């Protein structure tokens, strides 16, 4: 039982990170109907920027943890957003109205480019990072197994909840959110009514990248090691989460993220750790067979 609860806590933490990345997939898909293949690599860029800024702050002598945390968060969000904007500008905007496969292929090219760019710029070695936030609570001590809930896990989950709530408000209440929903329904009509479609799409990419930056920072702090390849697997899993929850739906992305995190954690805990990535892919295939529009999504109606 204790083991089970411990895995539940770990799974929810991992799921929060996947959920934040999945929101980026689902928002972009909602607005332009395409998968942003480079999103996993945007997440990786976010993790790397966080690492570099942490190291720089450490060298500059900033030792007060909350301050360092805040600076890293802001810088990572800004820099990663620039990356997200650039990806849209270079690989998506010139291709509106091109044939169906074109944006997919250019996004894959972008993903390959980003991976190799980071590898060349920062080296192929795995980058370690000493734990910054340690400690936590321990429950049910005394028996053969005790449950720990670390500060890091609390921060990750609560930050995710706050960001999710903020985003739900942003989409539902602000003019930007309204413009996004309008573009999602009918881009031409939205443009006719005075919505700047290009700008709205750019901002959607920027928002996705900002969330991916937060996810990247939390991944770095939680696991303590990153390399240029992390975006690949994390990207596929977050995409699986978005599909499982219903692509195009924000709460769906979060739910899907949690489910994928839990499935992966329990799979590694009770079956085999080697095949944990296989579990996520099998879920993806199963979801596509039995419920292609996801748990919370609406069936897509094909218009001629």
């Amino acid at each position: 039982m204790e083991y089970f609860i411990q895995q539940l806590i770990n799974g929810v933490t991992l799921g929060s990170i996947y959920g934040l990345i999945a929101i980026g997939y689902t928002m972009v898909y909602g607005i332009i109907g395409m998968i942003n293949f480079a999103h996993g690599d945007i997440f990786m860029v976010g993790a790397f920027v966080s690492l570099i800024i942490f190291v720089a702050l450490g060298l500059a002598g900033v030792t007060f943890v909350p301050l360092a945390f805040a600076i890293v968060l802001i810088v990572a969000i800004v820099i990663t957003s620039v990356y997200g904007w650039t990806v849209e500008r270079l690989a998506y905007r010139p291709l509106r109205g091109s044939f169906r496969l074109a944006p997919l292929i250019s996004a894959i090219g972008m993903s390959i480019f980003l991976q190799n760019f980071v590898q060349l710029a920062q080296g192929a070695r795995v980058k370690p990072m000493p734990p910054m936030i340690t400690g936590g609570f321990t429950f049910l001590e005394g028996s053969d197994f005790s449950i720990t809930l670390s500060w890091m896990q609390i921060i990750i989950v609560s930050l995710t909840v706050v960001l999710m709530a903020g985003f739900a408000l942003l989409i539902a209440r602000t003019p930007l959110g309204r413009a996004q929903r309008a573009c999602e329904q009918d881009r031409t009509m939205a443009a006719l009514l005075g919505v700047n479609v290009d700008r709205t799409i750019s901002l959607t990419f920027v928002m996705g990248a900002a969330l991916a930056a937060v996810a990247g920072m939390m991944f770095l702090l939680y696991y303590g090691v990153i390399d240029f390849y992390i975006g690949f697997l994390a990207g596929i899993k977050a995409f699986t989460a978005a599909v499982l929850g219903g692509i195009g739906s924000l709460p769906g992305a979060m739910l899907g993220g949690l489910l994928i995190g839990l499935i992966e954690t329990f799979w590694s805990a009770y079956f085999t750790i080697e095949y944990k990535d296989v579990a996520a892919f099998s879920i993806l295939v199963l979801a596509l067979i039995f419920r292609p529009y996801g748990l919370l999504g609406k069936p897509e109606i094909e218009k001629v």
Partner: protein
Amino acid sequence: MSEVQTRPRVEIAALLKESVVAALVALGLTVVMVGMKTVDQPGGLGLEYRWNWVAAAVASVFIGRFLFALWRETRPRHAAERGPSRQQRMLTSGGDFIRKFGLWFSLFALGFAIAMPFLGGPFSTRYFIDVATYVTIYIMLGWGLNIVVGLAGLLDLGYVAFYAVGAYAYALLSTHFGLSFWVVLPLAGMMAASFGMMLGFPVLRLRGDYLAIVTLGFGEIIRIILLNWYELTGGPDGISGIPRPSFFGLDFSRRVPENGDTFHTFFGLDYSSMHRIIFLYYLILALALITNWFTLRVRKLPIGRAWEALREDEIACRSLGINPTNTKLTAFSIGAMFGGFAGSFFATRQGFISPESFTFIESAVILAIVVLGGLGSQIGVVVASVVLIGGTELFRGLEEYRMLTFGALMVAIMVWKPRGLFSFRRPTVILEGKKIVGSQAGEGSG
């Protein structure tokens, strides 16, 4: 009309502002990622600063953007002055040459490929034939993937999985059961095809982008299984000692068995290690040509036309009574089958295989070949393989920049010349009297 109107005044201030914005973006992209490099130090990570690189990047983006904007503002405004439109150019450029000389070029390339080992000089060296074999493997893989991506319009990002299935099928069957290459070759193709069908069946009903990511995941699954199923595949150690193919039962070994012949004794030649190298080269050349021949033929059959029609418009196909799932499934599994053949050849040529040869990078390279050559173009694949794979061989020192260039090229090609860099392919069937107009041509017929 007066001349003043056609050449509006260039507003330098606006151009400068635009360039400054571009330079700021470049600064944002590079200041952390390039400007500060994390280096391993005793007791954690340290930083190494490279501000001069950042300055160089920002300056070149500023100047480049300014020149580009200047060019954009000063070029002729009217369509007539500017010459053929972008779409017209897309239809003709690169295509002209291929259309006129395509047949001659293919015949010349074929003749050269066949005669190559006997031309003497640098062409007959062991190194050159090895490189040519290597390039031909990629040509074959490119042709196989072209069926899936170019003809049927299905984006397959896990093509290397079928290559791996073919390679392991041959390696396992020959080392465990002693089956010969010629027996295993069709089996390996069948196995790869059935893997393709198994994977394709659930996902081909769905939109193209789902297929892309599921095939990507599938490629990874195959690699993870190969890596972890130690009892069967040897895990990361791979399988070694894979037997070489024979020439109709004649081995290429120096030692002659007691009751029988080897290649050199049967034909009364002196033993030379080159025999096997040349034989392997012809073997892959033949396999690749079979793939090409098959594609060219099948494009004229109802199934091939259905693939191309499906790529253009799935709804129209369904209303005409074409079953989209079955049609896609055939394209997918036939593409997989050729991948499996190429995999078997790879295993027998290397004599050793491990999961390292079947990473996502391989899939990306094959896809880059198909995309750069021009989706659906058979000659394009050949030119792209020779340039990309042969070129990499020439510039070994620049190996680390290879994938970076491939990625950038894929984006650039899609933006500027979505019909491919080297070649052009017209639709296999065109109705009489119907012209291809720009908007239709844009829709994936490249």
